[in-house]
């Protein structure tokens, strides 16, 4: 019995070296060659760090393309979904309220044109993307707020659509807004 535990102890130490020393060291070394060197891909605007490419951030001003509702208020050190069940009455009221607000801020947009992602919270609370429709439906508002021609803004959105071979097409909201600022100049 005693030798049983001694072996267990020694084997545990050996495995700590292999699994927690050698293995992560290899991954870390490989990460030095990866985009962002394993520290996250940073996005800068005029030399200032404004975010990470894969991490969503809050956009709720009319002159920006807005990101999805977030249960984590876009705090990137505390991800969270809403965990609301599909039949929860309070939740459904919240969705209704988001829809009303959206329609108010985007006059002229029909209900049927509002994609569900703009009134539902993402899984992580940090969703960096929208569907192409989710960005396109905001074009008239953004164009008006910035005094730009809607066609020009629409063309920008289409340019920013990232097509996917087998997954959904998407638009990275941060990249889109950085491009939008550049366009406005």
């Amino acid at each position, binding site marked *: 019995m005693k030798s049983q*535990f001694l072996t267990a102890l020694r084997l545990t130490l050996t495995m700590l070296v292999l699994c*927690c020393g050698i293995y992560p060291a290899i991954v870390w070394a490989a990460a030095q060659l990866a985009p962002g060197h394993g520290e996250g891909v940073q996005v800068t605007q005029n030399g200032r760090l404004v975010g990470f490419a894969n991490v969503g951030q809050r956009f709720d001003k009319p002159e920006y393309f807005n990101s999805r509702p977030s249960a984590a208020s876009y705090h990137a050190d505390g991800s969270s979904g809403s965990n609301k069940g599909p039949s929860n009455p309070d939740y459904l009221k919240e969705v209704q309220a988001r829809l009303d607000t959206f329609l108010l801020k985007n006059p002229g947009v029909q209900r049927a044109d509002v994609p569900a992602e703009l009134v539902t919270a993402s899984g992580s609370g940090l969703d960096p993307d929208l569907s192409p429709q989710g960005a396109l439906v905001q074009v008239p508002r953004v164009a008006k707020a910035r005094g730009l021609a809607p066609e020009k803004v629409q063309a920008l959105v289409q340019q920013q659509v990232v097509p996917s071979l087998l997954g959904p097409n998407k638009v990275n909201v941060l990249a889109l807004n950085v491009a939008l600022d550049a366009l406005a100049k």
Partner: protein
Amino acid sequence: MNKELLGILVIFLTTVLLAVPLGRYLATIYRGDKSWSDFLLPFERLLYRLGGVRPEREMTWQQHLLALLAINLVWFGWAMFVLCTQGSLPLNPDHNPSMTPDQAFNTAISFLVNCNLQHYSGESGLTYFSQVFCIMFLQFVTAATGMAACVVVFNALREGAVDKLGNFYVYFVRSITRVLVPLSLLVALVIVFQGTPMTWQAKAPVVTMQGDSTFVSRGPAAAMIGIKQIGTNGGGYYGVNSAHPLENPTFLSNAVENGAIVLIPIAMALAFGYYLRRPKLGWMVFGVMTAGYLLLQLPTVYLEMHGNPAITHLGIDQSLGSLEGKEMRLGAPASALWAIQTTVTSNGSVNAMHDSLTPLSGMNAMLGMMTNAFYGGVGVGFLNFFVFIIVAVFISGLMVGRTPEFLGKKIEAREMKIAILIALLHPLLILAGTALSAHLYVGNPTEYAGWLANPGYHGFSEMLYEYTSAAANNGSGFEGLGDNTPWWNISTGVVLLLSRYLPIIGPVAIAGLLARKKYIPESAGTLRTDTGTFGVMVFFVIWIIAALAFFPALALGPLAEHFTLYAK
């Protein structure tokens, strides 16, 4: 055909195609036959020498279990030590605190049993040291434990097996050096190039374009995500697991992480056949598992793509499916695929919030864990399935009036008692736990108001899901449940312990007992177990024992919610 549907089909089929050669490979290395990976032999000999292992010493089934339990106890001590003191240990640039004892107990047990009930959020609840040296360590070694136990059963069932069933430590070490480390490395390398962090730097301060100040959590994530997917542990680096855009940045990373969930469980089923040199038997097991899996998967994909009817009533565009709790780069079909694959195996990682799934999708996820044998966890999934095979052999034997026997060994009262106890333990733990909690909640709804994030039927589902997940050693959750309280930490901790070790001990004991019996050569009177007919039999045994036991509970939760939601 819809592009996203095609996407998930490609993910699943590719995984199965990869699992076939992997199954052959597993059989080869566990039999000790010649393999291309034999270049690792000197390295393994070094590990044996350092670990004090005598690889040539063969063990009986009791000695195997003793070795397994002893080393698990050591790991438990190590995990408790790290979690309770992490605040003062190195590699803590974000200055996160140590855990409270009840939370440390729950976390240590949870990962010790290769589960990942996480009553904490990785960003703030753990340090880089505990992520790597406690959580990731356990993700490797507990997966290898399950695989080693599974190989003991394989070995006991081979023709001519008697008492000596190989060396536990050898199976354990080989699982790590030849399977888990190389495969995890592959996954980790893909995702690190897709943008997952692998750094020791602290969280990064950012002032966003709109001027908000926030911090972006980073850390040694990629290494851990590799093994958490491959080893069916599922414990996420970040709080929201693979829904997090750094944990799972792209559709490609999602495909790889998703495939990694079921790869070894499928390969293990096939390895069973290859190991015994009866490949048809492996395919029978695979067929039954796949039929059960598809039965849960197909309706879930359909439901998630069609969205939440209560939101359809708002008159908005729900053409992309139900999106509450889902990520736009992944989409509804890929989220549905993951939700079922992670629950039929005992993985438990998520890429969408299960609490927000439509009611029947949530039910299918629960059924995956209630049956717990359609693919199942690495190693242990097959062990669960083995119990159902024994029961099915016995019932079929009675039906046709033949002595029940499996692979030339008679199944008698002792084996049956163990099998039935193990099969019934699972529903007992789930239903008793849920009933107790529901009783507590109803008795004092104000004191326990923090438990449930949703009222009514869905609230009941949250409690049912938690115990189901604990008993299946799965770890996913209806995360609206306020589960970081002493009641939930301790009660699920106990369920986790019982439902890990007994379902390992039981099948190993059955196999050990069978090995000692006299071998009866196959004849015309033998019940064939590698046929489709027997497969159908096993399938129904699983549904009758595992699924029907839960029907009343499911009727109170997800079924009731479904009918109220869709009736409007």
